[in-house]
């Protein structure tokens, strides 16, 4: 059981709860290897994927997770244009609440949307990414992938490289790593750093090459050109030269270290194609872990929801 009804930010989870989610995900991983990848666990429960922002991988991952648990998954793709039509997020929330669903996964262009939904609805909310704020299930699947690949989380040095200030992935991964006793190091040009990196509790570095030999994980972030007000570096070429992960940089990593990326990748910008496809890359493993971790999240949020009714 989790203490919070919702997973909106990493603040909702204690280190023990993170461990419980990862352990539970391991059991679901086994299910995902079977020929019949389906469990009756959440039969009769309704999971709504409320996506205000286009997303293929996250939505699909949640959708598969819901289906494998036999929940009824409903995709509600509301373009933010609902707002333009005069329907507020609160209206949308109330509309969904009237349809009595059990869990809403929300992806939204703006920070705080999950909190607004939670205020207007009486069901569990999972943040599927809100603006540049947080994306907790991504952080959980990243932890899972790291634990699978490296056998532990405590003490791992994880370099989070690139567009940190526009990254909800970093927004959740940094606190998640701190909670499990790993060491986040954010690396990138100052133009892509958050205003106050000090309050995140991450080490800050500007020179990737200096940091690489100390890392267990090199986590490349997607450069989000669409979110930047103005180009934060002179050219893709210069960015790739200074911060792109390529074979030469791969050599500088310790032999055991792995390369991760939340996708979708800008090949040739933050990561070269040969690194992305190399044996050191666990990028596809991340995608695979995503389903198991999201199954675990749904199971732990919805299972036992009526506890107290009977024992």
């Amino acid at each position, binding site marked *: *059981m989790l203490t919070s009804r919702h997973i909106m930010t990493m603040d909702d989870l204690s280190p023990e709860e993170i461990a419980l989610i990862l*352990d*539970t995900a*391991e*059991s*679901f991983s*086994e*299910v995902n290897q*079977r*020929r*019949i990848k*389906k*469990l*009756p*666990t*959440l039969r009769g*429960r309704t999971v709504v994927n409320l996506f205000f922002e286009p997303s293929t991988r996250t939505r699909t991952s949640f959708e598969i997770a819901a289906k494998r*648990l036999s929940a009824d998954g409903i995709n509600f793709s509301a373009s933010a244009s609902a707002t333009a039509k005069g329907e507020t997020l609160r209206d949308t929330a109330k509309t969904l609440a009237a349809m009595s669903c059990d869990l809403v996964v929300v992806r939204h262009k703006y920070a705080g949307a999950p909190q607004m939904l939670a205020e207007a609805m009486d069901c569990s909310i999972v943040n599927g990414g809100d603006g540049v704020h947080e994306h907790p299930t991504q952080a959980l699947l990243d932890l899972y992938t790291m634990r699978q690949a490296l056998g532990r989380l405590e003490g791992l040095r994880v370099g989070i490289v690139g567009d940190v200030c526009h990254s909800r992935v970093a927004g959740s991964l940094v606190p998640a790593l701190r909670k499990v006793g790993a060491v986040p190091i954010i690396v990138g040009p100052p133009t892509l750093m958050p205003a106050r990196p000090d309050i995140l509790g991450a080490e800050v570095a500007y020179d990737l090459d200096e940091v690489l030999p100390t890392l267990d994980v090199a986590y490349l972030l997607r450069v989000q050109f669409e979110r930047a007000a103005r180009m934060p570096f002179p050219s893709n070429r210069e960015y790739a030269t200074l911060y792109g992960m390529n074979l030469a940089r791969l050599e500088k990593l310790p032999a055991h270290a792995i390369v991760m990326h939340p996708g979708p990748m800008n090949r040739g910008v933050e990561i070269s194609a040969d690194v992305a496809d190399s044996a050191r890359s666990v990028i596809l493993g991340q995608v695979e872990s995503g389903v198991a971790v999201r199954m675990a999240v749904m*199971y*732990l949020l*919805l*299972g*036992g*929801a*009526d*506890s107290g*009714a*009977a*024992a």
Partner: protein
Amino acid sequence: MGFSEKAEVMDAEAIDRALTRIAHEILEANKGCGDVALAGIMTRGVDMASRLAERIERIEGTAVPVGSLDISFYRDDVSIRLSPEVHTTDIPYPVEGRTIVLVDDVLYTGRTIRAAMDAIMDYGRPAAIQLAVLVDRGHRELPIRADFVGKNVPTARRERVKVLLEELDGREAVVILEDDGKGE
């Protein structure tokens, strides 16, 4: 809940005899163990399954494959309670066409067995499923019966039956616990 021990209904020797008898019965019923595989239900059923496998191998000279089954995800009461700890199911043999003997410590309402049958079916289509339990305490809520029973123990619903195993509990016994009235 506050439970205190009311009676010991099987001791180490009785458990040992019962398991040996069940091993013989499994072999007899299936005319050997060619197509038989065991699946212990988490957690005590897993230990019992490996003990049965040892005995079968001793008697027959051939090893039967043993798997472990966690039925948390198949329970019909997920919405009421979560399993405190989820274990990973490990069925290291193809289920298709085999006779699967489910092994559990106590047979009670039958709901666990229903869930275990569903779980096994998700791995393939077995030729048959049989059930071996150390104790049948009655009070079935589903039309399920055991093929192999160590001991029938009549109980009241408010009582609990606990199988203690050396490797888990440091003691070998089957005991009846009774609500001591002290509440939770």
